C-alpha cells in the first residue's frame, strides 16, 4: 500500500482566519478515501491547497513522495491529480467530447507549432485524445452526448461528464467534490457503483461527500474534518462508532437527511 497522495500537517490561514490546522491526510493506491465534515469544515480548502490553487501557510503536500508545493495547478494536474467541482464547472460552450479531450490533451506532448504544421506526432496525439475521450464517455455511459454542448446536458450527465474530463488526465488520484449532490437515491447508488468501477480501473479516489450512506458504503477509509482540524480517521465502521465524530457531525446530518 504505497501512499500516492500525502498531506503533512497542513495549515492554511486567510488573513488570520485559520481554515485548516495541522491536517494530515493520505490516499494510497487502489483505495477510496473519503473526507467528511460539516459545512465550512475546510474540505474544499483541502482540495484547493492540494491542487496548488492556494499556497499553504505551513505543511507539505507530496504526490508519489515528491513535494508538489509551489507548482502551478496545471503542472500538479499533469503529475497525476485531477478534480471535480462542488458546483459543476464545465466548459459550457464546448461539446462534451471536446471537454474530455481538453483533459486528455494534458497527456500529450505536441505543442502549438506541431499543430500548425500537422506533424505526424500531432495527428497521432489528436487521434489519441479523441479515442481516449470517446472511451471515457462510453465508460461514463454518456457517449450519446458526445456532440452536444456541455451546457445543454442534463444535470446528471454534467456530473458524469465532469468526472470523465478529470479521468481523461489519467490521474493517480481523483478528487471528487460532492459528486452525489443533487442526485436522487437511485442515482446515488449508480454513482457509488461507478466510483467503485473507477477505483477498480486503477485510480485512487479522494471523495468529499455529505451523503453518509454513500460514503460508508463505498469508502475504504474515512477522515473527518471539523473546524479545519482532523478529529478522526478510520474504516467506516470505526468512524460510525467514534463518539467525537457523532458529537461533531453525524447528529447534525441525521437531522438534515
Amino acid at each position, binding site marked *: 500500500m504505497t501512499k500516492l497522495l500525502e498531506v503533512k500537517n497542513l495549515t492554511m490561514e486567510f488573513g488570520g482566519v485559520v481554515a485548516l490546522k495541522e491536517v494530515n491526510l493520505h490516499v494510497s493506491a487502489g483505495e477510496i478515501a473519503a473526507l467528511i465534515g460539516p459545512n465550512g469544515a475546510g474540505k474544499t480548502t483541502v482540495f484547493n491547497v492540494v491542487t496548488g490553487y492556494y499556497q499553504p501557510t505551513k505543511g507539505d503536500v507530496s504526490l508519489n513522495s515528491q513535494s508538489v508545493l509551489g507548482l502551478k*495547478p*496545471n503542472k500538479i494536474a499533469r503529475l497525476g491529480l485531477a478534480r471535480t467541482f462542488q458546483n459543476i464547472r464545465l466548459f459550457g460552450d464546448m461539446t462534451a467530447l471536446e471537454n474530455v479531450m481538453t483533459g486528455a490533451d494534458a497527456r500529450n506532448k505536441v505543442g502549438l507549432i506541431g499543430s*500548425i504544421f500537422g506533424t505526424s506526432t500531432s495527428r497521432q496525439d489528436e487521434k489519441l485524445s479523441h479515442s481516449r475521450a470517446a472511451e471515457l464517455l462510453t465508460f461514463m455511459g454518456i457517449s450519446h452526448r458526445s456532440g452536444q454542448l456541455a451546457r445543454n446536458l442534463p444535470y446528471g450527465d454534467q456530473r458524469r461528464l465532469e468526472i470523465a474530463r478529470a479521468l481523461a488526465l489519467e490521474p493517480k488520484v481523483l478528487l471528487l467534490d460532492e459528486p452525489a449532490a443533487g442526485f436522487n437515491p437511485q442515482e446515488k447508488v449508480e454513482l457509488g457503483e461507478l466510483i467503485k468501477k473507477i477505483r477498480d480501473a486503477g485510480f485512487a479516489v479522494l471523495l468529499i461527500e455529505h451523503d453518509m450512506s454513500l460514503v460508508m458504503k463505498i469508502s475504504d477509509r474515512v477522515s473527518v474534518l471539523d473546524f479545519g482540524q482532523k478529529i478522526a480517521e478510520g474504516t467506516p465502521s470505526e468512524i460510525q462508532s467514534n463518539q467525537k465524530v457523532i458529537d461533531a457531525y453525524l447528529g447534525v446530518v441525521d437531522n438534515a437527511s
Partner: protein
Amino acid sequence: MSSYKTVLSKINLRDSFGAWWENATKRQRIIFRVALIGLFYALPFLDNPIIGTPETNFQSVLFYPLAVFVVMAVGLNIVVGKSGILDLGYVAFFAIGAYTHAVLGTFYGVNLWINIILGAAFAMVAGVILGLPALRLRGDYLAIITLGFGEIVRIVALNLEFTGGAAGIQGIPAPPNIFNVTFDVLDPKPHYWLMLTFTMLVVWMYMRLGKRRPGRAWEAIREDEDVAEFMGVETTKYKLWAFVLGGAIGGGAGAIYASQVASILPDYFTLNVSILVLACVVFGGMGNIWGVIAGAALLQYLPEKLRFLSETRILIFGLLMVVMMNIRPDGLFPRKKREKVYDKVTGQEISR
C-alpha cells in the same frame, strides 16, 4: 424592434447553410470552396453600381479598409474571440508591422516579402514583452494595459527620429513584381490579392489550430480559466501564444498596408483603429471565424457605401451598431450554437 427581431431570428443563415454544408458531398464542398475563393479574387472587377462605392475607389476600398480590417479582425479574434482576452491595443502590432516595412523598406531597401516576416516577428517580440507581465492580469485591467500599449507605440513613433516623427515616412517601396503582376500605387488590385492570400494563409493556420489542441486550450481558458488550469492546460503559455499569434498577424498586415499606401503617419494608428477592429470581431460573432470575416467586411464596407450621406454617415453607422447589437447580441453569425454530429460507428466527427 421586436418584430425585426422575430424576423431576423427566423432567417438563420448559418444554420440553413450549415445544414446544406453537412449534407454536401466532398465534391460539392470543393466546388464551393473554389468558387468562393475565385469570387474573392475577382471582386476588384465587380465594381458595379450595386456593390461599388460611389464616392471612393472600390478597388482601393477593397484593400483598405476592407481586406486590412478582415485580416486584423481574424488576428484579434484569436485573442478576444477564441481565448477571451480583451485587447484594446491591437493597433500597436499593426503599427509595428507598418513601420517595419516603412523603415527597412525605404531606408535599407529590404523588400516586402522579408519585411512581412520581420514585421510579424517584431510584433511577436512586442507581444511577448507586453504579454508576459500583462497576461497575469484579467479582464478590464488587461484591457487598459493593452490600450496603453497601443497609445505608447504611436507616441514613440511620433517622437523618434528614424520613424520620421510626425511627418511619418513617404515613398515606401512596393514589392518587386511576381509572375509579371506589377505592384503600383495606382492599381490596388495586386496588393488586394496579396492581402487576400495572406488572409487565406492566416485562416488556414487558424483552422489548423482551432480544431486541434491549442484551439481547445484557448476555448477552455475563455470558458473558465481556473478550471482550464486544473485540467492541466498551461494557461499562461496558451494565453501568451494567442496574444503573440494575434500580434504576428497584425504585424504582417501592417507591412502589406504600408507597402500599398506608400506613406504612413503616426496618426493612422490611433486607438480608434483598435476599437474598430474589436467592433468587427464582436459584430461578426466572436470566436466564429466566418462570422468575424463577414462582420469585418460589412463594418468596413458600410461607411464607404454610406459616403453619399457624407456628413451623417458615422452618425448612422453608430446607430446601426447599437441596433445590431440589440437585435443580435452574439453578432451576425454567433459562435457554434450548432451542435456537431458524430458517426455512430467510428465516433468520428462528420461536420466541418
